[in-house]
């Protein structure tokens, strides 16, 4: 069993800069947690505090119930994969993988068995005699992973392990990490700035900004019900569209008015609104580009002047400008359109679209919180 608990964890540097404010998280046994956020959001710092490479200014980190705040990295029974691989350049691949076992005074025979096993899992058996500089980026990353898995650690930490690889290799290694995870059942904490990695790998995702946790949840929760405007904008490409809307109560439910288009608010949001002491009238209505639907009737919907159209192959992205000057992005599936229709769409000067009501999210105009998500965190103001 390996649970990791972070309680009110804080990191402040000597110059007064606070990298992580009050981080709370319970990581379950064998869970795959992804920390994601823009650069400088404190995700790597948090990981390094779990690893013991950074001192903790406040709070508590516990691995398996033992508080490890003052424990040396070597005593925490963790393994870590670094962005730049951090392979020992003067040692062969075999020695790189065996290093941790040698330090633990394991008999040679056992070391050999474990190293060859790990090499087999990662498909690097024929590379064992080489030096790191003779390997390609993908191979180096495999060796770095091999060095980590050979010890069977309680917690497996990965700090942007794929960001030095090219796009194709990254996809491949991502799939391999998913497979690896099934083979070595252990707790993972994975840091990335890439939302695709976060969505595909994580059981739960922690989104951070400026040292604050914005939301913790499954990929589905984050995508469908982002807790605030930041999360909504960060997850999903192209990013979510936001419309200023007026919220009004009518016979039992709510309606949001966007540029004269009436959008019926889904039942579950209405219920959440009804529980609130106060319901704001000015809200931001968020809807993803794929949920803006081209209208059959030019008189129903929101009008936008087309600025750019992008042919993505299986879909077309239309960048339009609303009458108030705001930009909006539509993602239109074109699998059912023939070439002529696709061309027509690409050459359109103006589009009229409606909103898929089921998929909307409403955010408080003032602090950016999702009105339907309980305990949502406001978007931090710039310090």
């Amino acid at each position, binding site marked *: 069993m390996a649970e990791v608990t972070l309680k009110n964890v804080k990191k402040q540097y000597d110059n007064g800069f606070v990298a992580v404010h009050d981080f709370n998280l319970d990581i379950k046994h064998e869970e795959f947690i992804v920390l994601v956020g823009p650069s400088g959001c404190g995700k790597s710092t948090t990981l390094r505090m779990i690893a013991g490479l950074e001192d903790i200014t406040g709070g508590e980190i516990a691995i398996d119930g033992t508080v490890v705040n003052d424990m*040396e990295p*070597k005593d925490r029974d963790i393994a870590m994969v*670094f962005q730049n691989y951090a392979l020992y350049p*003067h040692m062969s691949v075999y020695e790189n993988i065996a*290093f941790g076992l040698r*330090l633990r005074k394991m008999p040679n025979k056992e070391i050999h068995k474990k190293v060859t096993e790990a090499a087999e899992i990662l498909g690097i058996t024929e590379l064992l005699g080489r030096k790191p500089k003779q390997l390609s980026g993908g191979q180096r990353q495999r060796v770095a992973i091999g060095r980590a898995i050979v010890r069977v650690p309680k917690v497996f930490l990965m700090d942007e392990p794929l960001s030095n690889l090219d796009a194709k290799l990254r996809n491949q290694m991502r799939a391999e990490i998913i497979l690896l995870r099934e083979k070595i059942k252990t707790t993972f904490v994975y840091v990335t700035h890439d939302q695709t990695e976060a969505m595909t790998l994580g059981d739960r995702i922690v989104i951070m900004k400026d040292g604050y946790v914005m939301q913790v949840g499954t990929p589905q929760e984050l995508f469908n019900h982002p807790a605030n405007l930041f999360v909504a904008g960060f997850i999903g490409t192209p990013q979510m569209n936001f419309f200023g809307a007026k919220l009004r109560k009518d016979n039992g439910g709510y309606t949001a008015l966007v540029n004269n288009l009436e959008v019926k608010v889904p039942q579950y949001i209405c219920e959440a609104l009804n529980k609130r002491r106060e319901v704001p009238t000015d809200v931001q209505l968020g809807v993803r580009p794929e949920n803006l639907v081209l209208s059959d009737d030019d008189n129903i919907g929101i009008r936008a002047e087309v600025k750019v159209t992008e042919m993505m192959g299986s879909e077309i992205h239309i960048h339009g400008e609303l009458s108030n000057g705001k930009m909006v992005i539509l993602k239109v599936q074109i699998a059912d359109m023939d070439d002529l229709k696709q061309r027509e769409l690409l050459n359109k000067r103006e589009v009229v679209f409606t909103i898929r009501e089921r998929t909307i999210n409403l955010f408080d105009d003032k602090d950016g919180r999702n009105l339907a998500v309980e305990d949502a965190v406001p978007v931090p103001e710039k310090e």
Partner: protein
Amino acid sequence: MSDNNSNKKYASKSGKERTARTLIYIFLTALSIIWLLPFIYLICQAFRGESRSMVTYVFPKKWSLENFRILFKETQFLHWYLNTLIIALFNAVLQTVIVLSVAYALSRMRFKGRKLIMNLMLVLGMFPGFLSMIATYFILKLIGLTSENAVPGLILVYAASSGMGYYIAKGFFDTIPKSLDEAARIDGASRSRVFFRIIMPMAKPIIIYTIMMAFIAPWGDFMYASLITFGHEKAYNVAVGLYRWLDKEHINNYFTVFCAGGLFVSVPVTALFMSLQRYYVEGVTGGAVKG
């Protein structure tokens, strides 16, 4: 016409350049002769057989090994040589250990006062060492490490302040990614193990550079050695010993012997330098280009 014109222009420009180059080469040749002459002079004097005093010509009339015989049989030279060798070897070991440890700590660890210490050492290092000579002498005298015990005293003097020369080694360590240390620490290594098993094998050029510097400095030191030995002949190093032969009462009998001794003094340094030159260059430039 226009072709001709441009040709002419080109020719005159190159002529100017040629004159400039010739002047530069003449200047450089003159410099190298001035630089090389003392060495040639030293070698010639060391093998001169006709007289042992200073003469006004360079090439000996009679070549002989007599000066070397005198050097080894009739003087304390071997003793001084041994003293110098002991000091240099001890210092090479001590100073290398100290410099590399200080440099590594300053490169890797973050502690209160780190910047202050670094700046302080840099500023203190700018003062010439002899400013503290008198104080050093009295301290060493108090603990009995002067005169006949000058050899350990000198080792102490050279090694004690050597941490201040951390700068180049720190620059080198700074270029080794920190994540290597961190990976090793997570793999289960203590700080010292990281230093010896991971960093040291990668730092060969800077180790060799540091060893060479630590060997050469006391090998040629005169000022501290002459003060701390304080006229105690048995404890001299080669620089002090040889220099004494240049004073009024000795120079007429010992000048060529002095030259022979000088030749011997340069042998180990030259050999060391030649054999390790490749690493030396890497060590000096490694920090700058390996970013």
